């Protein structure tokens, strides 16, 4: 138990404390840190006496003092994120106090900025050989997204955030540099204050409803749960650094193979005081698909499920605007309050904060409420010990509707316009049916769906990280962080006994209590910079990390309700439970050495060895290296440096990845069939499972012009993942099993990221800053295990016969489907008997790819005196979206495209008469009238509804704020923010940002599959920020 051993040694260290703190022949240093530009004080500057553990932090007025400094000449080093570091020389005389002021140069983004890197370390931008990009906490908070993950979209090149839907609490997935794993998670590691933080989304696979062979499973289609990263209050975030590839994240190892999101939370500062902010938000729906109001249902609604192939509505028919009246204008309010401060010598600081979010959705009954309580304190206990504790508690309560096939949107769209949908109950209080179909066949009335069914999730979470930094010697320090991340997530899913989805079972209730407890310990031994020669220096670290993850889900399913309206599993006649325990442990040892030649040439070598519990021994131990370098050519060649700043970067990294727990040895499951007993699950054994490896390189440049008012950062990367572990891969049942987890896929990703920033105008009263992030990422499948023809993620097969399928040569975000049969020339093959196109019975590639050609995030900040106007445009070019909702409406005769149903047409194609591949195939000449042959619509291929090359320009957010003149409050500002105010797109559906599954699904998931999904609403926020 390495953890226990480390703690033992720490205890020893404490025991030795009293012997340590002495000083003789000393003097004091004091002074202020001032902004070189404005002359104003700079707080929170870390000042250290080089070569000693002495130091202080500046307080509110910029002052600092360091006592008991040994007499002699010293170098004072300053560091402050956002400012250039400095090194000044002072001479201290015994018994006296020397005053030294610093003039600090504020830097927006340039080579001398201090930035956060992996493991919570900081470094100067110039030394970094990889692409990484930061977003300030202020920008995150100003985006007004309850889920901070959504605020990252457009702000970092290469980061792609996809909301599952526009419902409160919807999960969001983050993909950095494209999809490389075709079945596993592609999400980055999330790190908070130095340790990993769970950002998982509950998968429906743990629900008792989704037990193998279940007929009432959700398969991650009918439900969504919040990604747990949303538990973090955006207002607590100081900054977010995105480490984009394995090169930057190498020290985080296997969980950061897809990059890392490194969150630093706020700490107290002298003069912090009391801060309060609020936000009141009004949301309105983006709209709904157009449906036709010309043709009525067939006969009556008697025997068919809402098919609108009947006669025209008679003139004067009364129509109800069911769709618009269903949605609500919703109000959300947020309040944040914080208290912070620090002692005047900067040795102790604290911050206590609380946040409240009450979000209501535009879909009735949907809401997301969150309470955050945060405390963080840091203290320099002795000269050689610094202690930092941060604790974050959050409580989230989320009500969502069902989504997709079971959700209210489809019921809303197909509900007859001649009927008032809001009357969803009979006078007796039971569900009102309007067709002759049984309650289990008639689609749920949307009101019934949201008012009588429930999807509720309550989450209690505590993240506590304790960091101890020992600096007993001048040449090194030891930093140990111990962290717990624990949450209890209680879920209740009710399918009402009268609803379509509950009727067959006379009501279904699912309860699932997820208890997650992750422990992390990380110890770093940092060696300070050591000069080998007068120009060459080295610094380094070695470290170890121990991770222990444990999740238990207690699922309970009750069916057959006694009282149809009493919501409790106690009220059901049939009950069964399902417990899912998942454990994973990881031990790692890593090291890094940084060579610095004359502050313009840097070489960083890193290595890491992991031991994981999820791979069979001895292959569970694996080592991988990385090397990165940075060359500041503008400093190396001063003649260039006169005109510009410039740096070249190159990096190469390998990173291993393990398997999900329990992937290689099959176990038995208790059967749900007659008389129980045990049987094998779907998965066969694979004792040869080994880790997968990604080899990745990137190179790039950072350039600054015009006194850094124009900056350019360009990165090209390529990553190849070999021996990729593909989950749930199929094979002949001759193996005795249905699925295997096996190595053998290879994928290759490459891409180009460009960040352009500029300050076209900077005057006393007016300034204009621009940041543009361009990203083009490509992912391709090179091979599949065992030369299998196709691998697919089964949960994505959610509508018709289209799914996230991969085969060699295809994009990692392709769609395979039972697409049209075509001849050698690509012409559609037409059935000579019906005149309708023929479809393949196999899942084939037809060139569909959900990857955009490129995306651009463009943010502008304009300041005029006390006004600031800030907006972020999110643009995308290309990438396909499957508009399944429109297909659904078309086969039901509701889409407006079916209005020409009486017009005869000949489908462009050639007859499949044996001549289709000859030199002169027979052109189709069979005229069909859809109104007379309902198969025209009913058997219509989904292929017509995969919309190619979807572009959009979306106003993610726009904020106007005004800083009030200083008065009795220290600081006050008013703001108004609009989010998602407009979207210009060639997509015909509601919102091209969709996911037919949730963030829990691996591979590319059902991103870009739009089926019964609520769009992201428009919202306007206004509020005030005060500081006392």
């Amino acid at each position, binding site marked *: 138990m390495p953890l226990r*051993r480390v703690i033992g040694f720490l205890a020893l260290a404490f025991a030795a404390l009293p012997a340590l703190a002495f000083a003789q022949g000393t003097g004091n240093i004091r002074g202020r840190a001032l902004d070189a530009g404005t002359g104003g004080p700079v707080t929170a500057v870390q000042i250290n006496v080089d070569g000693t553990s002495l130091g202080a932090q500046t307080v509110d007025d910029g002052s600092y003092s360091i006592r008991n400094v040994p007499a002699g000449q010293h170098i004072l080093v300053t560091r402050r994120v956002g400012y250039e570091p400095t090194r000044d020389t002072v001479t201290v005389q015994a018994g006296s106090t020397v005053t030294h002021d610093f003039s600090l140069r504020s830097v927006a983004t340039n080579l001398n900025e201090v930035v956060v890197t992996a493991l919570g370390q900081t470094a100067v931008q110039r030394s970094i050989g990889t692409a990484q990009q930061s977003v300030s906490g202020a920008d995150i908070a100003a985006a007004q997204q309850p889920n901070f993950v959504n605020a990252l979209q457009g702000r970092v090149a290469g980061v792609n955030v996809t909301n599952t839907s526009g419902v409160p609490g919807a999960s969001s997935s983050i993909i950095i540099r494209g999809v490389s794993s075709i079945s596993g998670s592609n999400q980055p590691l999330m790190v908070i204050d130095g340790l990993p933080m769970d950002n998982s989304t509950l998968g429906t696979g743990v629900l008792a409803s989704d037990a193998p062979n279940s007929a009432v499973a959700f398969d991650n289609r009918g439900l969504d749960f919040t990604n747990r990263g949303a538990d973090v209050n955006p207002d607590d975030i100081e900054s977010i650094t995105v480490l984009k590839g394995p090169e930057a994240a190498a020290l985080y190892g296997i969980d950061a193979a897809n990059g890392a999101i490194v969150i630093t939370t706020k700490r107290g500062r002298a003069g912090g005081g009391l801060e309060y902010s609020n936000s009141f938000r009004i949301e309105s729906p983006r709209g709904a698909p157009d449906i036709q109001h010309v043709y009525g249902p067939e006969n009556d609604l008697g025997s068919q499920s809402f098919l609108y192939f009947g006669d025209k509505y008679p003139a004067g028919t009364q129509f109800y605007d069911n769709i618009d009246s269903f949605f609500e204008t919703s109000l959300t309010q947020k309040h944040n309050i914080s208290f912070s401060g620090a002692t005047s010598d900067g040795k102790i600081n604290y911050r206590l904060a609380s946040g409240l979010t009450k979000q209501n959705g535009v879909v009735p009954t949907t809401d997301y409420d969150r309470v955050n309580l945060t405390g963080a304190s840091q203290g320099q206990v002795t000269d050689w010990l610094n202690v930092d504790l941060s604790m974050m508690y959050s409580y989230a309560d989320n009500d969502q509707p069902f989504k997709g096939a079971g959700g209210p949107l489809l019921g809303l769209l197909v509900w007859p316009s001649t009927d008032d949908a809001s009357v969803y109950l009979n006078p007796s209080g039971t569900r009102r049916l309007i067709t002759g179909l049984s309650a289990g066949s008639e689609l749920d009335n949307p009101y019934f769906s949201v008012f009588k069914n429930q999807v509720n999730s309550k989450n209690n979470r505590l993240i506590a990280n304790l960091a101890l930094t020992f600096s007993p010697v001048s040449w090194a320090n030891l930093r140990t962080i111990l962290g717990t991340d624990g949450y209890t997530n209680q879920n209740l899913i009710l399918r009402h006994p009268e609803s379509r989805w509950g009727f067959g079972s006379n009501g279904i209730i699912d309860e699932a209590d997820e208890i997650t407890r992750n422990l992390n310990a990380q110890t770093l031994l940092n060696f300070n910079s050591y000069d080998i020669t007068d120009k060459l220096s080295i610094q380094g670290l070695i470290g170890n990390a121990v991770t222990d993850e444990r999740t238990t889900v207690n699922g309970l399913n009750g069916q057959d309700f006694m009282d149809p309206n009493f919501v409790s599993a106690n009220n059901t006649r049939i009950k069964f439970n399902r417990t899912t325990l998942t454990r994973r442990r990881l*031990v790692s040892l890593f090291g890094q050495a940084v060579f610095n030649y004359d502050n313009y040439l840097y070489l960083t070598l890193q290595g890491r060895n992991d*031991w*994981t519990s999820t791979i069979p021994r001895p292959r569970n131990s694996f080592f991988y290296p990385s090397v990165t370098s940075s060359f500041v050519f503008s400093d190396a060649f001063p003649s260039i440096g006169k005109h510009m700043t410039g740096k070249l970067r190159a990096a190469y990294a390998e990173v291993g990845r393990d398997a999900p727990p329990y992937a290689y040895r099959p*176990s038995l499951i208790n059967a749900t069939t007659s008389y129980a007993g045990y049987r094998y699950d779907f998965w066969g054994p694979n004792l040869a499972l080994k880790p997968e490896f990604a080899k990745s390189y990137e190179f790039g440049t950072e350039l600054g012009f015009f006194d850094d008012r124009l900056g350019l950062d360009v990165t090209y990367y390529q990553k190849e993942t070999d021996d990729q572990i593909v989950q749930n891969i199929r094979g002949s049942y001759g193996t005795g099993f249905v699925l295997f987890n096996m190595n053998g896929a290879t994928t290759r990703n490459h891409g180009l990221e460009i960040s352009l920033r500029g300050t076209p105008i900077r005057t006393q009263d007016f300034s204009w800053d621009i940041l543009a992030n361009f990203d083009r990422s490509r992912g391709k499948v090179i091979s599949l295990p065992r030369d299998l023809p196709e691998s697919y993620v089964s949960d994505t097969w959610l509508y018709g016969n289209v799914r996230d399928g991969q085969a060699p040569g295809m994009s990692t975000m392709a769609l395979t489907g039972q697409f049209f049969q075509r001849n050698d020339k690509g012409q559609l093959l037409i059935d000579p008997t019906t005149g309708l196109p023929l479809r393949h019975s196999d899942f084939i590639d037809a060139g569909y790819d959900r990857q955009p050609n490129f995306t651009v995030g463009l943010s502008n900040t304009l300041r005029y005196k006390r006004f600031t106007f800030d907006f972020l445009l999110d643009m995308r070019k290309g990438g396909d979206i499957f508009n399944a909702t429109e297909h659904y409406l078309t086969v039901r005769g509701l889409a407006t495209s079916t209005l020409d149903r009486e017009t005869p047409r000949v489908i462009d194609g050639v007859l499949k008469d044996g001549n289709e591949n000859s030199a002169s195939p027979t052109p189709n000449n069979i005229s069909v009238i859809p109104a007379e042959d309902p198969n025209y619509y009913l058997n219509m291929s989904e292929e017509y509804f995969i919309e190619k090359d979807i572009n959009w320009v979306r106003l993610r957010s726009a904020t106007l704020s005004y800083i009030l003149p200083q008065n009795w409050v220290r600081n006050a500002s008013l703001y108004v923010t609009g989010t998602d105010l407009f979207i210009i797109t060639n997509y015909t559906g509601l919102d091209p940002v969709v996911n037919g599954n949730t963030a829990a699904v691996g591979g590319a998931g059902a991103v870009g599959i739009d089926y019964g999904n609520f769009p992201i609403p428009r919202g306007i926020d206004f509020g005030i920020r005060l500081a006392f």
Partner: protein
Amino acid sequence: MPAWRSRHRGIYSRETARLTPTYEKPMKRIFLLLLAGLLLAPAGCKDFLDVNTNPNGPETVSANLYLPPMLHWLATAPPYDGRYIGRYTQQFMGPASSISLWDRMGYAAGSDAAAEQWRDVYWSFGQNLIDMMTKAQNEERWDILGVGQILKAWGWQVLTDMHGEIIIKEAFDQSRTTFDYDTQEYAYFEVDSLLHEAIANLQRNDGAVDASYLAVGDKIYNGDRGQWLKFAYGLLALNRSHFTNKSTYNADTVIMLVDQSFQSNADDALFPYPAVTSNDDKNFFGTSRDNITGYRQTEFILNLMNGTEFGGTVDPRMTRMLAPSPDGQYRGLDVNVANWSGLDSAQRPMNFFGYQGLPGAGQPSRYIFSDKSRFPIMTYAQLQFVKAEAQYLKGEKGAALATYENAIAAHIDFVNDRNSDDGQSPTPITEAEKDAFLSDPNIVPTDPNDLTLSHIMSQKYIAQWMWGFNELWMDMRRYHYTDTESGIEVFRGFALPTNLFVDNNGKPVERARPRYNSEYVWNQAGLAPIGGLETDYHTKPLWITEPGS
């Protein structure tokens, strides 16, 4: 560790000068200790990492606990596939606006329909059966080993009868990516030898043979190995009875095997669905499962029972097995006519439950279509028909007639028993009705020389209707659907669909294609040599139904 010290000595000694001695010495020691801990940490992690044994399920269980799911599927897989092959044999059809490809003897490409038994033999049985038999062998549980061999034999039997060539020799090898198919002849041979081993094991009394142990997993015979022994003989009788087109057909062997198998209806292999959970443990054809709600009886089965094909004698079982129309009349649908054969809603036959739609929970159903109906796997009546056929083919018409009459009588009792399993609505067939029917010369000829194959096979069809899907289809294929004997159709009144599925090229269906998501997607290399990739592979006759040896 020493290497580390020497490398850093330079740094260390240089810094010493600045530090006070009291400060430096203990700290250095602690520091080195911490460092040692850091470096040694992974060495102690061997046990720490041992958390990958799945805590959610065992890796192995006692032999009898593998049995319940397999016995469940032994009873449930046939009706699962029966929804498709039952339409090839015109036991029922799905009324719709157009005639389904299944009613036209076609197949659904790109679908796993009609391949559930494939899944069950390779996966639901699969490694579970291997593990159970290995354990039984090691623990000398000869009774459970014998049951395992029966299951294995049953699997190969139904699978080869359904699909023809199947994977046997290379099956259950997880290192293979493609699998070669074995001939049907080999499958028949394999079934034969497995059943002989089963018979030997089920006769053993030594070792750990224990009826109460077997009964934990066996709710068909409650651990009675004597009953399983009869089952083994019965299955072997079915196997041998399929050889009627072969020169090796031996009627005496068939008769001998039937005589060693079931002695009365009390020996019937019936699966008692417990129906205590929401879905999976109920009769697949029960009302709750809603699997056959849309299907309706055909004109063919109706005509066998309403007198059309048997000289005007109405079968008393008709009103106990088939469903009336709302007007009280019994009708069947024409498989060649869409939209309910043009019947108006009062004339349309109700579903097998006796309703126009899905009945609510607790409402009585009919025959074997109730949640707790004991579903047949093999019956005494069925085997008696096998014996009657053998006697008939051997030329012992008198014996054949007696066996034939006994078979019908047994099935009448069976119908009464089934209709009382779960409070079904039909009234029992009275003794008087039964006697009248059995003494009716249209049904049971008075002169043995008037007995025809069509009596035996058409009545066997009735006795197997809606449960004996595998055997019934094999019967029809053995007689090539429309074979005649002295001008009389073996299956009286049967006609192939007039509009056969387009890929049939005018031929009737002879086999089902192997499971799509197992074979057509992942094992085309195995399918190609047997012609499995041809679009009309499903019309390729089976080895067993072709003349030869």
